[in-house]
């Protein structure tokens, strides 16, 4: 069966190649730091299940140390100049979009075909992971198509990939670190503490203020944890179920669904949601690492207010 492990092998092999090419890059002032950093990522993806919990823990400490103390940096593998790209763009014309569309189209059609035709009947892909598998397939097809058409140098995909991953740097690993931090927060009882703090500020008897604290609590706790998934069970246990649903008779579907969306407004406003907010800032080479968050706040706040009103109006019809 094809599933996540196949994709870990693919991604692991790619990071291993990034590590090797970094080590061989004499023009790179921090080449061994980068080689170690991407080498550890390769080890995690290829051998994470074999090195034990302590091994993985030391691996993470290694990643944090290399990134935190400035041992990694940008690279400049050989690529085309801006002028060459303009010329190439003119010559190739809009056909250049075709290979770019291979990945999304493969993921899209593959997912649809797998779920709605006989293709998926035999269950040859790990359940719920078909989009990832078709994403991986799309990557391989796109590389194949580009080689057949444009004949780049053999190492070009890996060197170009390394150029981009080095531009992103540690931000590429941070989302996984934050998810792991969330596990420790949960183990330490952070959720219970936040829930009990929230209950302290609730005024008695006002449905609207209780709804407002619930919505704000979802958003703020999501900002702290970087993830509405972590906030929802806590806020549901503290306010949503005992007060809004049980005491005031609110519709559980509304409280649940829109409560979660109030949390998503928080996701738009926090650096803790690194993969949505910090990674794109690195990927688009913004000067301000909080630039994406700044662009989102004025959408998130009015939307949060609307979510609170929606719960108040729709749950207590």
């Amino acid at each position, binding site marked *: 069966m094809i599933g*996540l492990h196949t*994709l870990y092998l693919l*991604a692991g092999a*790619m990071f291993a190649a990034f590590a090797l090419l970094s080590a061989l890059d004499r023009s790179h002032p921090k080449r061994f730091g980068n080689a170690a950093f991407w080498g550890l990522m390769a080890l995690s993806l290829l051998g*994470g299940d074999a090195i034990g*919990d*302590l091994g*993985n*823990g*030391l*691996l*993470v*400490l290694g990643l*944090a140390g290399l990134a935190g103390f400035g041992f990694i940096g940008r690279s400049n593998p050989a690529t085309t100049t801006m002028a*060459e*790209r303009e*010329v190439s*763009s003119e010559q190739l014309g809009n056909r*250049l*979009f075709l290979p*770019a569309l291979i990945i*999304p189209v493969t*993921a*899209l059609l593959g*997912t649809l075909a797998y779920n709605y035709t006989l293709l998926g009947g035999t269950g040859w892909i790990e359940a719920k992971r078909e989009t*990832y598998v078709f*994403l991986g397939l799309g*990557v391989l097809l796109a*590389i194949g198509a580009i080689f057949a058409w444009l004949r780049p140098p053999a190492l*070009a995909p890996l060197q170009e*990939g390394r*150029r*981009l991953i080095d531009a992103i740097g540690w931000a590429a*690993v941070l*989302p*996984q*670190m934050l*998810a792991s*931090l969330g*596990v420790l927060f949960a183990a330490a009882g*952070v959720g219970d503490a936040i829930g009990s703090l929230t209950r302290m500020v609730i005024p008695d008897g006002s449905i609207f203020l209780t709804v407002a604290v619930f919505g704000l609590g979802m958003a703020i706790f999501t900002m702290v944890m970087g993830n509405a998934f972590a906030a929802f069970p806590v806020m549901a246990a503290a306010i949503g179920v005992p007060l809004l649903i049980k005491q005031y008779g609110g519709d*559980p*579907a509304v409280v*649940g*669904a*829109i409560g979660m*969306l109030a949390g*998503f407004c928080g996701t*738009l406003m926090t650096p803790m949601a*690194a993969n*949505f907010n910090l*990674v*794109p800032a690195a990927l*688009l080479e*913004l*000067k301000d690492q909080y*630039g994406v968050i700044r662009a989102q706040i004025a959408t998130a706040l009015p*939307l949060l207010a*609307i*979510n609170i009103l929606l719960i108040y109006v729709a749950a207590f019809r």
Partner: protein
Amino acid sequence: MINYWPLIGIALVVAGFALKLNPMLVVTASAIVTGLIAGMGPVEVVETFGKAFNDNRIIAIVWIVLPVVGLLERFGLQQRAAAVIRSLRNATTGRLLILYLLYRQLTAAIGLHSTAGHPQTVRPLVAPMALAAAEKQHGELSEADAEEVKAFAAATDNVGLFFGEDIFFAIGSIVLIQQTLVTYGYNLAPLELALWAIPTAIAAFVIHSFRLMLLDRRLARNGR
């Protein structure tokens, strides 16, 4: 009696981010402190952190698109995306991003949320197109304007994803809501929850589109 000491871990993260210390170190320090406060031994903390990291490797898979994105950049894809926008007479940054917002919400609503994203679509296509449209409206962009346009391209992807995906009933967050409420004896159909995501989705589209139109006006006013 509720134990409030674990909140020190959160305080560390907030302080670290506010001081713009390296987030990798901030997160690691907070994880270790939080684990120790929770009564774990030092080795157990490292083990728990490592196991969680290994369990979350799925997050790293998306980077396999980088070699393709890089190859296409090598052959001038960003320049091509910009050229197409320049050839459209009525294209503006705001209109383009509103269209992308709609596309992102609709595809996410039918479960195709992983087919677009920051590495797959924003960096190679959406951001260069938005920049080209802005230059058409405005002439040469100042660095601050270019930063803002790129930031809005990324923001539009996030807004479209977050407030589209919950309309799809088989997504993780819907399952989580359902599972959480079941433990209290409320057994809801996923479809019932997904339906209640629609009003917020519409509100998100209206609010963010309005802001994109304001962005257009700002670009036009500052320009030629």
